[in-house]
């Protein structure tokens, strides 16, 4: 069960505030994303610029290298004597080979003497550059450096902007002059800026500090961008130039990030509004929860045995419980929503119609009894009106009524029907047909019961002919006026014998006053005339009979003011036999009402008989209920009243008790009903308090409390304890199982219907352990504890604690207590449900909103059921409406239909594989067709979920995922990849060209020049030995020696230049030998010990691999020498799994992160790029400050390597 935190409800109730909060959060998120995007753009721009810069640098470097070579080769034309031989042909071949060189000049002693081509350059011949101060400074720099130095860019005398590269040439140890090459600035820069021009957002510029003015001069002066970023690179050695690369910032990262930011802000606002609206809607849906609670209550009401209906103000049924339905002969659900008077038109104009309307109008509780003729049913109705309608409890009391009537009749019969009497008892109907004929009657009249029954008075000729008139009057009085009477007349027996009979006639009526029968007591007084004794006897017998029926009789002679009592009367009034009753002293026993009624009867002189019931106070102070019957004695001149008095106290008490019970039951039901309809806005605690308070008053219990049993069933915590006498709630300390093991055991083991009924709590098995610590201090005598169960487990207890006097809980109270416990359970359940519903609704709303706002397509796939669900956006992002998509038996078909044919198999196989064996996450990328026909790249991600609520144990669960359109990202990636491949190809090409040039130049100067110089040296040696033979030529010999030495040193220099350009060993002897040789050279040059471990190296490495490995090795060693401050380097080189691995480890200070990640450091970047060309990798790691390890790995014999190189 989910416990929804109060905080969430707070949010739901305040949609606007929440929406604002969400907006702020989303704006923050937008800011973060934009920032990240901006950084990404920035990094890409920077990388691109660096690549361009690198390409420019490489191009210029290449030109410098070529210039160097050309100038050097041109100087070969200078012969030993410092004269130029064959200059034009040498220069011509050089310019043909290196078209970038525009002009070659020979400048002995600073004067331009030779120029190739001569055309257009005639004007410069004879120009002394050392004499011209504007040029001499840069020319002198070449002399100072003893290597090529580029002057310019400068305006050529022959026209055009150009740079001039000069190398100083020495002959016989002396400065001879310059060998110079002129390269047109345009040629130099066109090559350099070729790549930059491919983009329209870069421009390249070229500057130099004017040696004369010391000001920086720019040579291209391209138009500046409004806002630009500058990269620069300085070529100090070659010409002190600086290359600038300007990037147009208007096409930069910031500009590209602005649309992202605007979209983000727009989405944030949209989402916040949508979210707010949804919350607003949720707030309204609160009512549904109320409805749910009511439904539970009604289920409870169905258990009430009486009928219960709820009507709205328009007389439509809102609710009817099961009994109400059964009573009306319809199903209760058919009633709901229908108008009661339309459904039961026969009720209109019945008393019930009037009663309901009256109650509604007056807004007051109404009790109403009704006899419903069509069904022959008596109903009683408890009508509770409210402004919204009526709630009515009603029940069938037909049976009760019938019983009451029968009891009443039986009582009447009992009192009047004196079977034991010596008098004959005859019952007549209104037509004086015999209904009952007692044995005595047979004795008197001779007719047997069998003969008499059904016969009328006339048929039996009971009345003496002469008395017929008198008797006729008496009969008329009985049948028409319903008055009891007496008569003495002559009758006839069956045998025709005439007898004298005393008749006591009375009329028996039902409640409505209808005559049921006429009863006659008959005494044959024929004998009494002769025998008074027998008459007296008879009178005594009458009295004893009366006594047996608790009926006293009296006779009041008002004329003489005399009162006679039968024996029984004394008993009723609790007076002794000596009491002399008079009309006056009897009054003391009766209340005023009784007296008043008597007086009225006496005053009216009515001959009707009267019956009433009243209280009387006996002489001993007892209160008794009596039923009095009075009638005037007819046919006398005196005013004589005869009366009977019946003690009906017990009957009355029983009735009162029954009525009280009825009232209490009604009150109980009323309370239950009210509690079940508690306002749902009330908190759970308020509801509980309400219930405790109400229940306490109904059940009349001093202490009523509700306890919650914690999850481990170890502690009972009192939520509330209501003290009835103080009308206050307290909270007693919690109870622990360790202290009251029996009680805990008892409530936990009790099943649904069980409870603890402790009439004497001190002795009850479960509660006696409370006796000392709890019961006595609180004066508790009896307890009634009802456990509350949820899902078969006890979760709490409703405790009734009665104080002071012991109490025996009645079945009715127990039932009520259980009902209250049920109600509390419903409150708990409703609270749980409310929280759960709320939580579900909230998370659902949030989920929907996120899908909508994020513009991603959401989908869910139920693995076992093969059900597929997707949000509208799933198709909207592809330009379709969800409705347009045809739903088929294959739930994944819409997806598969739109998949790109090339992705269909791969993507669906991947999905199926995931579904068959689901793990945490699913990820897939494929193309789907947009409604416009184009394919979009979709990134699908999913999570595997298995909810215990939704999925059963044996089910596989579901995959919840989203679709994101990554087409643009994909395109961008592709573009970047293409650019990178192009750059890499270009870079590789440049490297190769450069390397080939170097190889070539190195060979040329080493071999050609080397041989020439060797020859020169040998010539000198021969010359020397020739002059040695002559005398007094010591000066010349010495000179020759010096020359030889110079030639030797020149040879050494040439060899070094060649080897520096590219060691021929690499091509001649292979990689291993080169590395060993290079390591040795390195040791000598730097003094750093170099430890080599070269294992199992294939001899057939390609030229490219050789070059790459060697160059990287060379660069690594240079880095060690320059930066590492190491004393030792160890180099490991081996082949493993078709990979060539080289590790260069030093024991120096370790590479700094700054240097490592400095992207403008061309050394490291160059190495990485060189490795990448061969599909290899290069990386450099800091060994925790204990040195640096550079690792190169290159795949061997890979086809990819070949492809990249193409």
């Amino acid at each position, binding site marked *: 069960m989910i416990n929804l935190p109060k905080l969430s409800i707070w949010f739901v109730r305040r949609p606007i505030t929440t929406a604002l909060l969400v907006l702020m959060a989303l704006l923050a998120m937008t800011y973060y994303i934009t920032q990240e995007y901006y950084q990404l753009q920035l990094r890409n721009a920077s990388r691109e610029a660096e690549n361009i810069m690198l390409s420019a640098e490489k191009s210029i470097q290449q030109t410098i290298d070529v210039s160097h070579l050309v100038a050097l080769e041109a100087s070969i034309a200078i012969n030993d004597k410092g004269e130029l031989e064959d200059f034009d042909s040498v220069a011509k071949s050089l310019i043909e080979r290196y078209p970038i060189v525009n002009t070659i000049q020979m400048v002995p002693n600073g004067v331009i003497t030779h120029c190739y081509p001569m055309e257009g350059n005639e004007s410069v011949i004879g120009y002394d550059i050392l004499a011209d101060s504007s040029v001499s400074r840069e020319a002198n720099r070449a002399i100072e450096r003893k290597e090529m130095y580029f002057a310019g860019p400068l305006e050529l005398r022959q026209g055009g902007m150009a740079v001039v590269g000069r190398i100083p040439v020495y002959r016989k140890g002396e400065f001879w002059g310059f060998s110079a090459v002129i390269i047109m600035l345009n040629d130099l820069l066109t090559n350099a800026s070729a790549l930059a021009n491919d983009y329209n957002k870069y421009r390249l510029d070229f500057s130099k500090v004017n040696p004369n003015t010391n000001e920086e001069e720019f040579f291209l002066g391209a138009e500046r961008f409004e806002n630009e970023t500058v990269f620069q690179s300085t070529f100090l050695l070659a010409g002190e130039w600086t290359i600038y690369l300007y990037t147009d910032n208007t096409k930069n990262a910031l500009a590209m990030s602005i649309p992202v930011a605007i979209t983000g802000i727009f989405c944030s606002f949209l989402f916040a509004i949508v979210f707010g609206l949804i919350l607003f809607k949720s707030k309204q849906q609160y009512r549904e929860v109320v409805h749910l609670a009511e439904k539970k209550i009604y289920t409870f009401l169905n258990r009430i045995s009486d009928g219960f209906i709820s009507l709205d103000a328009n007389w439509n049924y809102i609710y009817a419980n099961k009994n109400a339905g059964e009573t009306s002969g319809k199903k209760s659900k058919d009633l709901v929503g229908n108008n009661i008077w339309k459904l039961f038109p026969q009720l209109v104009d019945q008393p019930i119609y009037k009663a309901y309307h009256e109650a509604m109008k007056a807004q007051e509780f109404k009790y109403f009894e009704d006899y419903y003729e069509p069904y022959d049913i008596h109903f009683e109705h408890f009508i509770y009106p409210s402004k919204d309608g009526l709630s009515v409890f009603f029940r069938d009391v037909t049976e009760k009524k019938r019983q009451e009537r029968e009891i009443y009749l039986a009582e009447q019969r009992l009192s009047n029907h004196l079977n034991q009497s010596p008098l004959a008892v005859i019952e007549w109907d209104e037509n004086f047909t015999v209904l009952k004929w007692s044995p005595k009657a047979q004795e008197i009249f001779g007719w047997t019961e069998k003969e008499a029954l059904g016969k009328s008075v006339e048929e039996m000729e009971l009345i003496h002919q002469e008395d017929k008139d008198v008797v006729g009057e008496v009969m008329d009085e009985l049948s028409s006026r319903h008055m009891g009477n007496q008569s003495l007349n002559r009758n006839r027996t069956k045998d025709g014998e005439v007898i004298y009979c005393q008749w006591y006639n009375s009329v028996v009526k039902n409640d409505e006053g209808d005559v049921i029968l006429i009863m006659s007591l008959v005494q044959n007084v024929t004998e009494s005339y002769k025998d008074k004794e027998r008459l007296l006897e008879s009178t005594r017998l009458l009295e004893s009979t009366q006594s047996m029926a608790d009926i006293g009789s009296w006779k009041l002679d008002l004329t003489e003011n005399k009162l006679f009592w039968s024996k029984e009367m004394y008993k009723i009034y609790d007076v002794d036999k000596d009491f002399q009753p008079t009309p006056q002293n009897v009054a003391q026993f009766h209340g005023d009402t009784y007296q008043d009624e008597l007086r009225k009867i006496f005053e009216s002189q009515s001959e009707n008989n009267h019956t009433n019931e009243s209280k009387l106070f006996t002489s001993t102070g007892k209160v008794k209920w009596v039923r009095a019957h009075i009638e005037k004695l007819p046919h006398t001149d005196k005013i004589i009243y005869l009366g009977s008095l019946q003690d009906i106290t017990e009957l009355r008490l029983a009735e009162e008790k029954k009525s009280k019970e009825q009232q209490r039951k009604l009150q109980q039901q009323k309370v239950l009903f009210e509690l079940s309809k508690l306002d749902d806005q009330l908190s759970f605690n308020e509801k509980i308090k309400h219930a405790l308070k109400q229940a306490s008053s109904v059940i009349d219990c001093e202490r009523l409390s509700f306890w919650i049993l914690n999850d481990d069933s170890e502690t009972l915590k009192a939520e509330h304890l209501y003290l009835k006498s103080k009308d206050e709630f307290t909270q007693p300390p919690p109870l622990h199982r360790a202290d009251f093991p029996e009680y805990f055991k008892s409530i936990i083991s009790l099943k649904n219907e069980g409870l603890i009924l402790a009439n004497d709590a001190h002795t009850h098995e479960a509660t006696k352990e409370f006796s000392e610590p709890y019961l006595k201090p609180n004066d508790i005598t009896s307890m009634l504890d009802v456990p509350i169960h949820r899902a078969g487990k006890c979760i709490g207890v409703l405790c009734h604690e009665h104080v002071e006097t012991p109490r025996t809980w009645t079945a009715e109270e127990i039932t009520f207590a259980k009902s209250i416990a049920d109600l509390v359970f419903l409150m708990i359940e409703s609270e749980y449900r409310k929280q759960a519903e709320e939580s579900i609704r909230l998370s659902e709303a949030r989920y929907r909103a996120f899908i909508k706002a994020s513009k991603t397509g959401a989908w869910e796939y139920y693995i076992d059921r093969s059900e597929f669900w997707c949000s509208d956006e799933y198709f909207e992002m592809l330009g379709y409406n969800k409705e347009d998509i045809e739903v088929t038996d294959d739930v994944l078909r819409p997806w598969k239909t739109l998949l790109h044919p090339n992705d269909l198999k791969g993507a669906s196989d991947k999905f199926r594989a995931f579904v068959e064996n689901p793990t945490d996450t699913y990820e897939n990328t494929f193309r789907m067709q947009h409604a416009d026909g184009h394919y979009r790249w979709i990134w699908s991600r999913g999570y595997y979920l298995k909810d215990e609520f939704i999925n059963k144990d044996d089910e596989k669960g579901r995959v919840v995922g989203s679709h994101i359109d990554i087409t643009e990202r994909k395109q961008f990636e592709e573009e970047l990849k293409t650019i990178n491949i192009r750059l890499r190809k270009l870079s590789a090409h440049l490297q190769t060209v450069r390397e080939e040039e170097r190889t070539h130049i190195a*060979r040329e100067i*080493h071999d050609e020049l*080397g*041989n020439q110089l*060797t*020859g020169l040296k040998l*010539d000198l040696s021969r010359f020397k030995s020739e002059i040695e033979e002559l005398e007094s030529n010591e000066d010349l010999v010495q000179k020759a020696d010096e020359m030889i030495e110079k030639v030797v040193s020149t040879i050494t220099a040439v060899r070094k230049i060649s080897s520096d350009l590219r060691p021929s060993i690499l091509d001649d002897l292979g990689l291993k030998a080169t590395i060993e040789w290079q390591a*040795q050279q390195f040791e000598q040059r730097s003094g750093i010990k170099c430890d080599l471990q070269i294992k199992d190296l294939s001899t057939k490495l390609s030229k490219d691999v050789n070059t790459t490995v060697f160059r990287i090795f060379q660069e690594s060693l240079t880095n060690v020498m320059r930066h590492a401050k190491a004393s030792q380097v160890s180099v490991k080189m081996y082949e493993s799994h078709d990979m060539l691995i080289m590790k260069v480890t030093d024991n120096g200070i370790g590479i700094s992160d700054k240097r490592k990640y400095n992207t403008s450091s061309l050394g490291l970047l160059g190495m990485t790029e060189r490795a990448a060309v061969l599909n290899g990798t290069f990386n450099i790691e800091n060994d925790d400050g204990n040195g640096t390890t550079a690792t190169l790995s290159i795949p061997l014999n890979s086809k990819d390597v070949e492809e990249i190189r193409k």
Partner: protein
Amino acid sequence: MKTLKLITVDDSQVIADHVSFLLTKLPWIEWLGHAYNLDEARLLLKEKQPSAIILDIQMKEESGLDFLAEIKDTIKDVDVIMLSNHESEPYRDRSRELGAKFFLDKSTEFESIPSTLRIIYNQQKMRK
């Protein structure tokens, strides 16, 4: 054996001239010819059957080291003197590995050619 039968292999005219100058002064040398490339050298080797060769390493696109290996594979009793501008240790080592008798640096040890040849001449004489 009165003379040392010798051929020289070098692509450089300058070097060829100087070698020629040097060798013609040595009466115990029977200089059988000069080759400017390896094809010529192979022809000479086959026709003249020398017992000693002075061999350059780098000749245009060809390598004297390859030729050295070739000779040592086919003919056993030929002594080879490498004469090269590539004076560095790796070249010396490789030449030795491949069976060259001597290694002379063109620029500094050119003058040692006669004495070196003499050693070979003497050794070959001893062997005979």
